């Protein structure tokens, strides 16, 4: 069993109103950053999980997204497995 750092990036679906992103865009505009056409604000959830393999870690977090971390009505998600933190027999059991 290894320990993996997994990131779930959750974003508002295309077409779903994102008032927070729009407010950020307005803020950037008032700071005179030009050419910012659109801002979408989502969230990142970082998890440290135990799994046998990188694929197992990714599929576990995808199931978490389907059931809780994301709301499929309004959000999409992507999952990346960043690194192995430790492997079996590591010092931090």
């Amino acid at each position, binding site marked *: 069993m290894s320990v993996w750092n997994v990131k779930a990036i959750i974003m508002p679906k295309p*077409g*779903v*109103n994102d*008032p*927070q992103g729009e*407010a950020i865009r307005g803020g950037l505009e008032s700071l005179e950053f030009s050419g910012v056409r659109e801002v979408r604000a989502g969230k990142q959830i970082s998890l440290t999980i135990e799994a046998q393999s990188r694929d197992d870690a990714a599929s576990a977090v995808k199931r978490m997204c389907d059931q*809780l*971390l994301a*709301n499929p*009505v*309004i959000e999409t998600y992507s999952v990346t497995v960043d690194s192995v933190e430790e492997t079996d027999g590591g010092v931090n059991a």
Partner: protein
Amino acid sequence: MTRPVVAVVGFPGSNGDHDALHSLAEDVGVDARLVDYRQTSLAGVDAVVLPGGFSYGDSLRAGAIARFAPIMAAVRDFADEGGPILGICNGFQILTEAHLLPGALLRNKTLKFHCHLTHVRVEHATDFWTADCNPGEVLTLPVAHGEGQYFVDADTLGELEAHGQIALRYAERDGTLSDEANHNGSTAAIAGVANRGGNVLGLMPHPERATSPLVGATDGLKILGTLQELSAGLQTRAS
């Protein structure tokens, strides 16, 4: 005659539970009981209210954690049996997260917390909760929410319209729709939506805060008053 029993579910972070209990007991005149979220049974209950508030601090998304509370399995069974369920504000958010109602609630388009009286037009009086209203009737009810922008995609909106599930729309006092009246930016100005069976209704306005002249509005009785017709033993459930 025995009064109908109405369960008000208290979640950690609910703040409208005692408003609902007071309104139901004192103004509507039913036997209102607080049911703790850790309970697992709704035996003997004639109707369920999921109150407003900030269950679990709105962590992750409003209602996202509450839907896994122990009581929710019984709430789901109760809905499937045709039992009347009203989700008010955070209760509405919980019902959408639990997929007992379609759609989702987003941050208000203004990004501000909206706390004021609002007018809602009754679209369909086909569900349990609006049975005492007339289509086109305008109710004055308070709102208090930061995440009340109802969202459904175009296909689902078509289904809601086809099945008469849109119960309430934000409107002007005279019943006309306008961008100003739709203060939180909801899809099709939807303020309240029912399930196909018409026994589950979710709405952002607070009928339980509008059942006494003392608080300046009584139109909440038009919705909660339907509970008076639920005399105990005379179930309106489908099964």
